[in-house]
C-alpha cells in the first residue's frame, strides 16, 4: 500500500493531488518567539492563513486533492496542533516534517547531540509521533547553515536524516542545494538512493553559481525549484530573490532538457511568518496564479505540469517499504 503521513493521519498517495512540496504555515528563527515585535494573536494568524489555504484548496481542485508540505523544522516554530486544525477546517492535506532547516537553527540540546540520538529523534517523530500530538512526520528536513558550507553539525543532521530515511522510508528535502558534495557522499555511505532526496532552493538568487544542479540530477537527485515568487521585481524583495524571468528560464532548461521527472516546484511562502516580516503578497497560490500560466505561455503542456505537481511529488513522498 502506498501512503504518506499527513497531520490528520496517513493517506493513500492517490489522494495527494496537487502538491506544493516546500511551504510554510509559519517560519521563524529560534528565539524570535521572545521578541514581541513579531507577535500576532491567534485570531490574526488564522485570518492571515485560512484564506490562503482555502484558495490553495480551490485552485488545486482540477488535480484532485491539495497537499501542502510544511518545511518548518524542529525549533523553527513548527506547530503541529495548529496544522491539524488548519487541515481539518480547510481540507488541505498538510505533511509535517521532522529534522532541522539547518544546523544553525538547531538549539543547544540538539547541537550537542550525536548522530545516533538525532536519528532516534527523527525516527520517533516519523513512526510514533511529534511530541504528544500523535502526528507522524512525512518527510525529513535538513539544510546547509548560513555561509554556503556544510558545518559539522549540518553533516551530523544529514547523516541522521539518511539513517532515518533508510529505516522508515520517508524522503528528505534540503534547505539549499549548495555544497552538495558532502551531502551526496553521506547519502551514499548510508545507502540512501538519491531519488529519495529533494535538493531544495536550486533556484534562489543567492545560490546561483554555487549549485551543481545538472550533476545532482544526473546522479539521481531531485531538484527543487521551490522559491518561485521571490522575484526581484517585488517592491521589497528578500536577499534571496531573483529576476522572475531568469528563474523561469532556469526551470524551463531542466524541463526541456530531459529532467522533467527530476524537478519539483514550490513557492516557499509563509502563510503567516513567525519571526520576520515575510514578503507581502507572496503566497503558495503563486504556483497557480503566476507559475502555471508562465509555464503554459512557454509551451509546457498540461501533462508535464501534472508530472511536476502531481506525479513527481507522489513518487517522492510515498513511504518506501
Amino acid at each position, binding site marked *: 500500500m502506498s501512503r504518506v503521513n499527513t497531520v490528520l493521519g496517513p493517506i493513500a498517495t492517490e489522494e495527494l493531488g496537487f502538491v506544493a512540496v516546500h511551504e510554510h504555515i509559519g517560519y521563524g528563527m529560534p*528565539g524570535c518567539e*521572545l*521578541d514581541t515585535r513579531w507577535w500576532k494573536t491567534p485570531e490574526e494568524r488564522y485570518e492571515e492563513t485560512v484564506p490562503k489555504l482555502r484558495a490553495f484548496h480551490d485552485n488545486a481542485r482540477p488535480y484532485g486533492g491539495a497537499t501542502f508540505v510544511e518545511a518548518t523544522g524542529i*525549533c523553527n516554530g513548527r506547530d503541529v496542533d495548529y496544522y491539524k486544525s488548519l487541515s481539518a477546517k480547510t481540507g488541505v492535506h498538510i505533511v509535517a516534517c521532522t529534522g532541522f532547516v539547518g544546523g544553525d537553527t*538547531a538549539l543547544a*540540546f540538539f547541537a550537542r547531540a550525536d548522530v545516533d540520538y538525532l536519528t*532516534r529523534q527523527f525516527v520517533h517523530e516519523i513512526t510514533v509521533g511529534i511530541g504528544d500530538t500523535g502526528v507522524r512526520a512525512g518527510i525529513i528536513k535538513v539544510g546547509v547553515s548560513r555561509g554556503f558550507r556544510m558545518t559539522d553539525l549540518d553533516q551530523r543532521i544529514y547523516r541522521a536524516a539518511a539513517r532515518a530515511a533508510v529505516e522508515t522510508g520517508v524522503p528528505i528535502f534540503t534547505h539549499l542545494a549548495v555544497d552538495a558534495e558532502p551531502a551526496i557522499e553521506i547519502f551514499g555511505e548510508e545507502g540512501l538512493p538519491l531519488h529519495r532526496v529533494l535538493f531544495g532552493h536550486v533556484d534562489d538568487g543567492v545560490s546561483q553559481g554555487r549549485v551543481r544542479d545538472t550533476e545532482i540530477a544526473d546522479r539521481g537527485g531531485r531538484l527543487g525549484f521551490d522559491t518561485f515568487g521571490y522575484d526581484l521585481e517585488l517592491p521589497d524583495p528578500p*536577499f534571496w530573490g531573483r529576476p522572475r524571468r531568469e528563474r523561469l528560464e532556469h526551470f524551463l532548461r531542466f524541463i526541456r532538457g530531459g529532467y522533467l521527472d527530476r524537478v519539483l516546484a514550490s513557492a516557499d511562502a509563509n502563510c503567516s511568518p513567525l519571526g520576520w516580516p515575510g514578503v507581502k503578497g507572496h503566497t503558495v497560490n503563486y504556483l497557480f496564479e503566476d507559475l502555471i500560466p508562465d509555464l503554459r505561455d512557454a509551451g509546457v503542456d498540461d501533462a508535464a505540469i501534472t508530472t511536476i505537481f502531481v506525479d513527481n511529488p507522489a513518487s517522492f513522498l510515498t513511504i518506501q517499504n
Partner: protein
Amino acid sequence: MNTVLGPVPADRLGVVAVHEALLSVLPGAEHAFDIAIDRAEIFETLAAKLRDFRAQGGGTIVDSAGMYHGRDVPLYEALSRATGVHVVASTGMGPEPLLGGYFLTPQTNPPTPWPAERFADLFAREVTEGMVVPRVERRGPAGLVATAATREGMTGTEESLFRGAARAGLATGVAVSIRFGADPVGDLEIVLDEGLPAGRVVVGGLDRREAVAAGAPLEIARRGAFVALDHVGLDDDDHIGDEERAALVVELVAAGLGDRVLLSGNAIGVAKGHPGRELPYGHVLSDFAPRLHALGLADADVRRILVDNPRELLCRA
C-alpha cells in the same frame, strides 16, 4: 524590588539566594522525543524545595537563568503564592552557544549577530513592560539581567550581550549578573565600560579555582562589584570546596570587603535536557553558614552577606 508577584519592599526579602535556578531547560530539550515535561510534577518538586528553603530561614530565591533556559513565569508566580517564598526572575541570555539562531544568524545578508543595542532593548523591555511568555503575553517585571560568557573566553556576540545587559541595567535600574568566561576582571570591565556603576553588578563563579588562584574575588570586590561565591556545596576539579570557600569569605571580610560578598548554590530545582545540580536551596543556611560561624565570623557579618548585600543588589537603583 521586582518579584514575579510584583514589587516587594526590600526589607521583606529576608535571606536571599541570588544565583539559583527553578526550572532549567537546555534550549531545545522541550522538543526532545524522550524528555517529558510534566508541569504538575515540576510544580510539586519545586514547591517542596522552596518550602524546605523557607523552613531553613530562606526568604527569596532569584532564578538567575535568564529568559531562554526554561523560565516559566506563570509557574513561578504560582510557586511563590503557594510557598510564601519571594521569587525574583531574570531576563538576559548567554553564553553564545545557548542562544537561538534568531540572534546569531538572523535572516539578513550577511547574517550579522545582534549588536549590543538590540539586546539592551530586548532585556530592558522585560523590566519596563514585563517578562514574556513567548507569543502569549507579558507578565511581571524581571528583577535581574543575567548573562554569561563561554569558558574559553568571551566571544564577540557575548561582548554584545554583556554591553546590552549593562545598558539595560543602566536604563532600568535593575542589577546585572555576569558569569565570566576566562577573565573575570576583564569581563567585568566590559560592563563597567558602559557606565554601569560597579555596585550594580554581581560577578558569578568567583569560586572557580582559576579565579581564586588569580586573586579575582578580592580584586573584583575592591572595584566595588559584588562577588558571588555561588557554588556552595560543590568541590570538584573546577571549584574550590566549602572549606576553602569559607576561608575565602573570612579573608574578604577581614579585608573590609564583607559588604561585597554574596553566597549561593547554583542549585537547579528541576533540570530538563542536562544533568542539573541537585542541592537544597537552603544549603548555604543549613551547612555553610555554620562553617562561617565556626571560623569566627560575627553574626552581623553573616547576616550582612545573606540579607543586606543581596537586598542592596536587587533594589532598583
